[in-house]
């Protein structure tokens, strides 16, 4: 989400390389570029200025460390400052049970989908009986949308398709949820402009009626300068307790996150990373800051993997890789594990240096074909790929509805993979990194 900002920061700081020490003069030039980069990334004008000023005062006051390029030093200072800013306040939810959560935001920011996503995620975290109350009586079919999602995720649901009295609907929904012994009650509301006086009054009344433990602003990660006005007005009206950033699977630079955080001080709690209800996660400031600086979001990939992948299986796989004893059966198993992580594009988004990259057209289809090919092999063939002579390959191609050339290509790729693992085993990790770099340079997604 912050890739372009990262690019700009690195180019702005490249100029600092080779400079003997940080002076106000050489800092000023670079920081001017940082400011431009922040503005280009939709960080609010005032926020960008203050951020740069703070970083500047920290930099100039510091001695140049020996053996460290001034650029790196500045990156470190910016990184720390970003982590501090983004991470202020606790991302933890109120411990109240049942937990009452009010979702608010502009039109089309993603409240309804996020309501279902939050229910699903929190169920994994120990809320057993989530419940959703539909309070958007304005947008046509908004109630239907929430109902469908709630059913799909097995979340309790309340709606009133007749009344337009939103606070009363919410109160009735609360009663229904309590009667159902819900331990998590989510209130989805209509999108509203922060300057729409009547609708802001309405949601204030709603809030007063249900007394939420959490009031979460759902904001589009691609919001522009407007983010500040929006967040401020919603915060003034409802005393927000948290922020959810959505649509971060796109390539928006996400400067809005920085703006909203610094203007309201409200902690960022969750991020949405796709249309599927599972594509939702806790917000981690250090990861976001790392991502801003181009280090990729490796940690969250690892964590996501942990939630979805069988731990023992992963360890077994790692062990096999280490021993370079990795056959096609393992390859198939691994592919199936990867699929559990989400779409290839969303996985790419979390890989260092690849977040801006496109999954090549047809890559998902390609993966399905590869799967079909391996599935057409006998167990023996999968374990001992060297068995695959011409006849067997022909049979496999026919069985999987592919061409022999495709089977050959897969086998060749697999051999390369094995070689790479052998290199790793022999301490050739560096060599492998170079190969990966080369692949990246060609804009190709490695493997599969």
């Amino acid at each position, binding site marked *: 989400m912050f890739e372009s900002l990262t690019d700009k920061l690195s180019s702005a700081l490249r100029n600092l390389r080779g400079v003997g020490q940080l002076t106000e003069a050489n800092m000023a030039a670079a920081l001017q570029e940082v400011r431009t980069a922040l503005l280009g990334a*939709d960080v609010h004008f005032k926020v960008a200025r203050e951020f740069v000023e703070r970083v500047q005062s920290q930099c100039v006051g510091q001695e140049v460390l020996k053996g460290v390029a001034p650029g790196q030093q500045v990156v470190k200072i910016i990184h720390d400052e970003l982590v501090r800013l983004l991470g202020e306040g606790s991302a933890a939810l109120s411990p109240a049970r049942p937990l009452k959560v009010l979702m608010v935001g502009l039109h089309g920011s993603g409240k309804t989908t996020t309501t279902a996503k939050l229910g699903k995620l929190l169920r994994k975290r120990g809320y057993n009986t989530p419940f959703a109350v539909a309070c958007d009586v304005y947008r046509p079919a908004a109630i239907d949308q929430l109902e469908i*999602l709630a059913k799909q995720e097995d979340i309790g649901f309340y709606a009133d398709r007749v009344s337009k009295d939103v606070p009363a609907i919410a109160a009735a929904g609360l009663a229904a949820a309590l009667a159902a012994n819900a331990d998590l009650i989510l209130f989805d509301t209509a999108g509203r402009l922060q300057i729409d006086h009547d609708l802001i009054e309405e949601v204030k009344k709603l809030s007063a009626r249900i007394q939420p433990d959490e009031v979460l602003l759902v904001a*589009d990660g691609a919001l*522009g300068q*407007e983010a500040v006005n929006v967040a401020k007005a919603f915060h003034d009206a409802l005393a927000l307790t948290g922020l959810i950033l959505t649509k971060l*699977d796109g390539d928006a*630079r996400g400067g809005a996150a920085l703006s909203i955080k610094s203007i309201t001080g409200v902690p960022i709690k969750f991020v949405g990373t796709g249309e599927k209800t599972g594509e939702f996660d806790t917000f981690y400031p250090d990861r976001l800051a790392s991502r801003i600086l181009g280090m990729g979001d490796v940690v969250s990939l690892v964590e996501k993997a942990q939630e979805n992948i069988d731990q023992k299986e992963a360890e077994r796989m790692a062990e096999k890789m280490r021993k370079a004893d990795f056959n096609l059966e393992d390859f198939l198993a691994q592919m199936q594990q990867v699929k559990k992580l989400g779409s290839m594009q969303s996985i790419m988004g979390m890989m260092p240096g690849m977040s801006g990259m496109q999954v090549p057209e047809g890559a998902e289809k390609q993966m399905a074909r590869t799967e079909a090919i391996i599935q057409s092999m006998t167990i023996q063939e999968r374990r001992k790929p060297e068995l695959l002579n011409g006849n067997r390959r022909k049979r496999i191609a026919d069985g999987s509805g592919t061409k022999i050339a495709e089977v050959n290509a897969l086998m060749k790729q697999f051999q390369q993979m094995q070689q790479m693992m052998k290199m790793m085993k022999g301490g050739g990790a560096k060599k492998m990194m170079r190969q990966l770099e080369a692949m990246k340079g060609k804009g190709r997604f490695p493997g599969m």
Partner: protein
Amino acid sequence: MFGLFKKFKSGLAKTVAAIAAKTHGLFGGRKIDAASLEELEEALYTADFGVETTAEILKEIKEAYRQDPGLQGKQAAELGAAVLRRVLAGSEGVLAGGARPPGALGSENAPGGRVPPSNPTVIALIGVNGSGKTTTSAKLGWLLKQDGRGVTLAACDTFRAAAVEQLKSWATRLDLEIVASHTGADSAAVAFDAWQAAKARHRDFLIVDTAGRLHTKSNLMDELAKIRRVLQKNDPTAPHHAWLVVDGSLGSNSIEQARVFHKSFGLTGLVVTKLDGTSRGGAIVGIWRELRLPIYFLGLGEQPEDLQPFNAANYARAVFGLDD
């Protein structure tokens, strides 16, 4: 037609009111000085104009200020609006045969009234999630209908939960004709059927609402290509318009959206929504600069009549708070 034109004008007055609310004061009768120049820079950035346009406007105002230190705020605003007008020259989209005041209708249908077209004019609305496609489809259908045109809506968002129901309930409310299937159906097949229906009933326009998709997802972009292919089986020139619906409150990412959608789908124009808030939708200026995609309509609210033709001069004046 004339009655409608009046409504457009009052609608534009609404743009002005909405957009100008914030800038006004800054450009009052006050003399320009270093401090107000900085405020000006801030105002330009906070309108999401982006670095390039902001720099261009500032440069011109600074130059004028250098030549005439007595420059007044109001004059600076006029200068800014002039730059914006210049930048936006040619950016007004004109929907031929569609909802435009008589003078703007173009020569296509003149003289002597209009002949029913042999094929419906197809308008496809595309964009990222939640940008306002469905609402715009409904509003546009209503507008064209008010203008005496025959309209069919195609509910081609078969992906998002209740998207079909959303457009259907608009159709019922505004008494518009609609062709829809169910969630999970093949969107291209819906487009095909809708075209056939529009054709059989001699409709002037077919408005195709599509599922929201982020421009970064190539598989979803393929689905759009399929809708196009299928429409072209009916009429090789369809869709005649492919408009990107842009959320006016978004920042510079709108430019990237437009770039990618244009590259993969071939856009012909823009609709900018949600300008009834305090955002000034400055990102469209960046899109116009780079891609030269005309802007057809602005969305100024959730009611059917809140879709207004884009007028560059009005927009420029509104941004600088020049119409009181």
